[in-house]
């Protein structure tokens, strides 16, 4: 059955929330009482519940199957974390109630920071950024502040061509010129290529490690050394941190700032596109610039520093990223996840994530093609569309055909440097049996593509709530809100 929009099934005058009208009172709204009709038809509670349950049934989710979106880290979301985040002592506290009434909240933030610092080998942490890209912005702002503090006119940021789009976007937002670093054949960065671009104008390099091709940048130490020697900073995109927790500390690799996607590495739920959380860890070179608010560890316990008026010597925050203190609800979930794994479990999770990706690689390497040959990958394995040459099937077709087999497709056409890229990240949450089935299914699809069963791919998906959607039409004639067929006055009658 189709599910209509709430504006089609809702009724004016209906409400699913029972409230008593206040007794008579004298409004004190000046002359600004609402005159424009709200035009938000309501539903009774049973109708609203059914509507959203039915909508949910049109979604794929981790809980319903393997979700191998490369770079997105769709791992299991423990319900313990949801339960903990809903404790009234966390969910029902106001960001501006007296700090004397929330010592447990500050304790939790301090503890989360302690774990992040230990795992990364860095010096300080800014918890407040609201998402990965926001963390990137925070890290690059700290770099810009540091450069300004030094009084140097550095306005170039180096970004490898395989980078996430957020990297150049962030640099550009801050007024930096983006210079692209070419990749080696295997997608990694050559220190010599970096050195060739370094100059007194270069503020920073932004590097993802493990990179977006799923490879660890084996020359990262040499790159960091070169960058530092040139007086620039090393920003690391931490999107793929989940591959190396407990295996390497980015601080020891020479990183100066890195955001951490709590929703990736520490499994706060993705929620259909957020909310995320993007704390940033800093090296000693940048620690002083961490934005407000931050947690200062004092002898009597952690203190939440909210304003410039409270700063101590050596604290030179570049400003403020958000109202209040960051994604507390995500902090609770992430810490629950960390406590559950412990240091040993986090390391094991990284190992299993890498193991699973390589197992998928091993299962598909003879029938699919890898852009730089068959080599060990980290937590995700990258294929190109070479194996589809001459079949008439594209990466898009192949992905859509996976839907008909009951799977969410992998990340398609990213990284951009690889033709028809297919980036598969199984995560550590998948069992061997699950991976075996996935590999067998993909092998079967490859065989079908090579056997010329093109219609199966071009017409896919056939067994989903919708067939392929016309994205061009959506962009050319944008319909971004619901509009009634008839004018409001008439329809309400």
């Amino acid at each position, binding site marked *: 059955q189709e*599910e209509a929009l709430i504006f089609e099934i809702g009724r004016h005058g209906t409400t*699913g*929330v029972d409230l008593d009208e206040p007794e008579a009172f004298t409004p004190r709204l*000046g002359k*600004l*009482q*609402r005159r*424009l009709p*709200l*035009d938000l038809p309501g539903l009774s509670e049973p109708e*609203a519940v059914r509507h959203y349950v039915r909508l949910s049934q049109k*979604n794929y*989710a981790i*809980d*319903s199957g393997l979700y191998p*979106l490369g770079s997105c880290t769709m791992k*299991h979301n423990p319900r*313990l974390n949801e339960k903990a985040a809903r404790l009234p002592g966390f969910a*029902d*506290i*106001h960001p*501006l*109630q007296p700090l*004397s*009434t929330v010592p*447990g909240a500050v304790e939790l933030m301090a503890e989360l920071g302690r774990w992040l610092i230990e795992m990364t080998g860095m010096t300080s942490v800014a918890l407040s950024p*609201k*998402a990965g*890209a926001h963390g*990137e*912005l925070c890290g690059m702002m700290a770099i810009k502040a540091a450069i300004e503090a030094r009084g140097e006119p550095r306005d170039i940021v180096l970004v490898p061509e395989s980078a*996430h789009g957020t990297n150049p976007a*962030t640099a*550009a937002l801050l007024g930096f010129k983006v210079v692209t670093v070419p990749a080696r054949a295997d997608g990694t960065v050559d220190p010599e290529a970096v050195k060739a671009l370094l100059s007194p104008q270069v503020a920073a390099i932004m590097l993802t490690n493990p990179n977006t091709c799923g490879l660890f940048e084996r020359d990262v130490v040499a790159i960091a050394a070169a960058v530092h020697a040139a007086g620039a900073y090393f920003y690391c995109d931490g999107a793929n941190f989940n591959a190396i927790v407990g*295996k390497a500390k980015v601080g020891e690799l020479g990183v100066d700032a890195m955001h951490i996607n709590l929703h990736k590495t520490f499994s706060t*739920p993705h*929620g*259909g*596109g*957020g909310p995320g959380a993007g704390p940033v860890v800093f090296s000693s070179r940048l620690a002083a610039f961490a934005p407000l608010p931050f947690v200062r560890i004092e002898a009597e316990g952690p203190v939440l520093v909210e304003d410039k008026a409270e700063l101590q010597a050596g604290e030179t925050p570049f400003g*403020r990223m958000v109202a*209040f*203190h960051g994604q507390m*609800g995500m902090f609770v979930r992430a810490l629950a996840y*960390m*406590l*559950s794994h412990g*240091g040993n479990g986090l390391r*094991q999770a990284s190992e299993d994530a*890498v193991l699973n990706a390589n197992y998928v690689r091993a299962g598909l390497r003879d029938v699919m093609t890898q852009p730089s040959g068959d080599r*060990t990958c980290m937590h995700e394995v990258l294929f190109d569309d070479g194996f589809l040459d001459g079949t008439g099937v594209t990466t898009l077709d192949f992905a859509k055909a996976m*839907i008909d087999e009951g799977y969410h*497709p992998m990340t398609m056409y990213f990284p951009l440097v690889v033709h028809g890229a297919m980036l598969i990240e199984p995560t550590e949450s998948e*069992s061997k049996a699950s991976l075996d089935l996935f590999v067998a299914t993909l092998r079967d699809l490859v065989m079908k593509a090579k056997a010329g069963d093109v219609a199966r791919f071009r017409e896919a998906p056939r067994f989903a709530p*919708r067939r392929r*959607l*016309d994205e061009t039409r959506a962009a050319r004639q*944008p319909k*971004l*809100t619901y509009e009634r067929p008839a004018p409001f006055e008439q329809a309400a009658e």
Partner: protein
Amino acid sequence: MRYLPHSEADRQAMLAAIGVGSIDDLFLDIPANLRVHGLDLPKAAGELSVERTLGRMAARNVPAGSVPFFVGAGAYRHHVPASVDHLIQRSEFLTSYTPYQPEITQGTLQYLFEFQTQVAHLTGMEVANASMYDGSTATAEAVLMAHRVTRRQKAVLSGGLHPHYRAVVATTSAMASDTVDALDADPLGTEDILSRIDAETSCVVVQSPSVYGHLIDLAPIAEKAHQVGALLVAVFTEAVSLGLVEPPGAQGADIVVGEGQSIGNPLTFGGPYVGLFAARMKHVRQMPGRLCGETVDAEGRRGFVLTLSTREQHIRRDKATSNICTNSGLCALAFTIHMTLLGETGLARLARINHANAVELAEMLVEVPGVSLLNESFFNEFTIRLPRDAAGVVEALAAKGILGGVPVSRLEPGRPDLADLLIVASTEVNTVDDRIAFAAALQKVL
């Protein structure tokens, strides 16, 4: 470890299939001398143990629901129907990703479309995006958008704008090499902002109700801004007010941004929240963030997709309108479900209750000797002047088990002249007993 399916035997079999001898063989790219062999962190813990640890921390905080509670200033305690939290926890919403494959994520896409429409109607605007991180970052993005639209670089910020929002805008703008002209704190709601608007102005940013609770007539500001080719960015932090107050869109605002937490989302010490962002259709291609649009599928059936992504970082990279990459999906869903349950009827009634409670509270508090009210107009929040330091009063009230508002000094610590001001909010969760207890306690501690 309960979250990791593999047995040791599985791992060995998989290593063999890969063709390596040990797990370390998969990490050879990490320089040998930098490989970590242990973290100075506790070992894995079972659920019971984790619950105890976190429960102990949580128990050190005073939950809003356990005391008479009057704290606002940008985040508000409202009652959220139980069905909202139930529905957003459904696996298919909670554990799904950004709807990159629209055929199997119509659930997410349709609620985003519903959300956009609700936000547009609520704010009186033509179009809204699929949400931002929160109200403060949405405000900073609005200022950046105004720069793109007007190609000017100076934002004028009202003194009634939440000081945290002001700081976020100032930080972002400074980093983007733009100029911010921020007016002085305006606790009386009487600032002259019109005179600050000139031909250099990209936008005027005005919050209504202001952080001090004043309702601001936006129409004259919009008129002046439009005269000089600037945009009016209207801000709100209390979405419920829009049930009773004329929306910014009807007063001439060009961009409306706000915090959506009040509808559907708990306080959670400040986040995650949901930023609302609405604009005029003519500026849609300069908007930041995700947009969901209607289209049809190969069989002609209505469906929804993310659209106009040529604005976004994953396509445009350094030419993107914003570096934003996600939205606040699940919080937006909570907003949408709560809003759907309320409908116009419920929202308007909820707003009236909030207003009535605040009016009653204001009348009670001004009866306390030495207390005066600064507001001519307000919605569910207002500012009072106390005969002594407000921060000390709030601590004294807290000691008596009442969370009595936000001292302005918390937000403007550099302004000793404002230290006797207290911002007080009263929503539908306050009972008349709560209000009486507050007034009585305030009298005692003054």
